[in-house]
């Protein structure tokens, strides 16, 4: 993915300057600007010191709670910035082409981690409604980051979602009824859209622009640290191409990208359980390229469709699990007991698990319960907190056919 390629090009600036460069001239209308401000706030040495103590205070440490309270207090301004950002449309500014850098990603991840300590503090102080609002704000934030730009945003937003869900899992029984109702509503709205498709489209659009750029500035890709000798040889070939040959190559790769775009719309219109395989089939189309250089460009510049699809189905399954937790916990608050089975819940539409092709798995165990989706063969079971089983979540399926040039050692898919 281009965004991963250019991560290697981060400027040797201090973090605050790098973050400010993302915003450029603030408009005041883009929530992403507030998110960056929050990230800058959390770059301050006082917060870094406080958070260092959090990292040294895992569960069981005497300073577990005190370290989190301190860090939460030091970074408190970040919360209001995120709330302000959540109230506005959110779009990552300045994404143009292959040269776009994304220095903010690690720092945006820190914002999610900050919310985890803030939620701990608010719950421990008995401010459950505020803690619930923080959870919701963190949920909105992570989803907004996911959908604000390209696939790299999606990766960071997904990681942030993981932080939120971890917090919810820890404080499941403490989240008040009013918050659960908001969370259920939020999940309903989020599941009704497929904003991640726009993320992929955006990434493809930039890739489309970048194909030409690649031929003009192949050294951008050459800077990849893990590039093989074969790939470097291939790039040397690029430099030797005539302008007409380059133009033909650009057209070929772009046609492949356009085809992928059409096909992915079709894939995402079908049941979620078929998304990973459908996207893997689009990846397979790269092998239709007759020229190894075209294949190489497609594989480097296009997103890893199957991995994005796996992440998307996982995220949606987790949102469904979250919604179901919300309905179960609301039932518990309203009736004083946990439901005996999912059939007791008032919303039967939420009980169906499109990824697992059945119902969500619910087991009542005294005053607690287990809830998860059976998931997909590529993901394994998916709960509120997702742990990828060994060997899952990477390649969806092996290629059914391999172009001959792969056997010759040209390119690395």
């Amino acid at each position: 993915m281009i965004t991963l390629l250019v991560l290697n090009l981060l400027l040797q600036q201090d973090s605050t300057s790098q973050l400010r460069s993302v915003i450029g001239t603030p408009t005041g209308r883009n929530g992403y600007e507030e998110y960056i401000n929050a990230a800058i706030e959390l770059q301050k040495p006082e917060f870094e010191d406080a958070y260092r103590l959090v990292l040294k205070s895992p569960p069981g440490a005497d300073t577990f709670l005190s370290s989190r309270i301190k860090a939460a207090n030091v970074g408190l301004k970040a919360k209001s910035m995120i709330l302000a950002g959540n109230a506005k449309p959110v779009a990552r500014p300045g994404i143009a082409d292959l040269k776009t850098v994304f220095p903010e990603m690690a720092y945006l991840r820190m914002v999610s981690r900050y919310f985890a300590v803030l939620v701990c503090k608010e719950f421990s102080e008995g401010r459950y409604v505020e803690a619930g609002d923080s959870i919701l704000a963190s949920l909105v934030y992570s989803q907004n980051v996911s959908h604000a730009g390209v696939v790299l945003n999606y990766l960071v937003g997904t990681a942030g979602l993981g932080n939120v869900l971890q917090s919810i899992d820890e404080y499941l029984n403490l989240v008040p009824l009013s918050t659960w109702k908001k969370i259920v509503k939020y999940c309903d709205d989020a599941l009704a859209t497929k904003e991640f498709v726009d993320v992929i489209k955006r990434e493809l659009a930039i890739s489309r622009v970048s194909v030409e750029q690649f031929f003009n500035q192949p050294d951008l890709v050459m800077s990849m640290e893990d590039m093989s000798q074969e790939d470097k040889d291939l790039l040397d070939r690029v430099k030797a191409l005539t302008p007409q040959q380059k133009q033909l190559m650009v057209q070929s790769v772009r046609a492949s990208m356009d085809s992928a775009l059409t096909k992915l719309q079709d894939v995402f219109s079908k049941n979620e359980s078929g998304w990973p395989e459908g996207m893997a089939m689009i990846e397979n189309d790269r092998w239709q390229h007759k020229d190894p250089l075209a294949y190489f460009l497609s594989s480097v510049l296009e997103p890893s469709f199957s991995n994005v699809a796996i992440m998307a189905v996982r995220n949606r399954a987790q949102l469904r699990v979250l919604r179901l937790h919300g309905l179960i916990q609301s039932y518990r608050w309203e009736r004083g007991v946990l439901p005996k089975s999912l059939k007791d819940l008032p919303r039967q539409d939420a009980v169906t698990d499109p990824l697992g092709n059945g119902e969500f798995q619910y087991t009542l165990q005294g005053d607690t319960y287990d809830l998860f989706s059976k998931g997909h063969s590529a993901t394994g079971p998916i709960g509120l907190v997702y742990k990828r089983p060994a060997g899952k979540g990477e390649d969806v399926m092996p290629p059914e056919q391999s172009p001959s040039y792969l056997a010759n050692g040209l390119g690395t898919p």
Partner: protein
Amino acid sequence: MSMLLAMVIVCSSTGYEDLVQAAELIGSPAFRQMEAVLPKLGERTWLEQRRQIVAKADKAMALLRSGLQKPVMDPHPVPRLDTPYPELVNFRTLSRLLCYEADVRIADGNPNASADAIADGFSLASAVLNTGGDLHTVTAEQIYDRTFACLERIKWQLTPKDLDTVSSALKTPTPSILITKIDGICKGAVETAKQIADDPDKELAFMGFKEADFAPEVLATWRALKIEDRRTRVTEYAKALASAEDRCSRILSLSEALWLESLNVISEESGPEIPGATNLWNPTSIFPSFPKLIAELNTRIRLARLECSVLRYRWVTGALPATLTQASPSETRNPQTNKDFNYELRGKRYSLWVPSFHGKARVSMTGVILEDG
């Protein structure tokens, strides 16, 4: 003045008066009806209807809290056996209301208010326990039962501050309370005996006894006595009772571990009886049962305090303690057995209990007897 208030000798500036006024407010037929139709656990409007009843009871709750802030004293200086306590039923209702309030507040995300309601439940139980005689004791036990169950239900949702609030309301009754209570019961028995000596027919009728309750020859013997003789026998009865009371008091001044065994000795002795009225109540029969009840309450209160310590530790460190000593170094030993309370950590859950008196089952904070194994 209402019926209920009129039946209680109102003693100004004591919290008992406020408690009775609170009880009066929730004693109306309309309120009783409202509570009678409250949905059971699992029903759709379980929370909503509790919310409504809590809102209706706000004045009663304010009075209850005002009363608990003051010293609570029994307004009956020397209660007789037939002294009516109509307020006790409503005290139990008040404790149920506190539990409803705890459920509603925690659902609304206000654990502090929920903990306050639970703490008030324990304070009410303690206040009732510290006043009156056996009826108050039984009522207090019922209030404790209900409040322990409520705490068990929401203990995982309370914050460190809340757990401290609850813990500080969990006070073990002192032996002096028992002694005072037993003294009150004995005085009440003697007072009743005196009344019966003066006018047996009137007093027995007033107490609701029927002639059929007594062996005819016993009642006839009693009636046949001259009033002076009846009074003399009552004086002898009072002396014997005082002696038994004295022995009981001495036992209660010993350590808790020695209470039960020693009091069983007293119960095996035949206590004094009102001569000629053998079917009348003999207060010494409750001498062992009271300390048994209080001893079990003490255990459950100590277990509840330990629960608060364990859960507080979990907040502070992010993990349950591996041993009780980590959570509460000074309260791990059960003074009744001189052994540590039993604590078992199982993943993200734990069990806290003591062996039951017969040693074949487990007693937890809620008093539930868990099966062995």
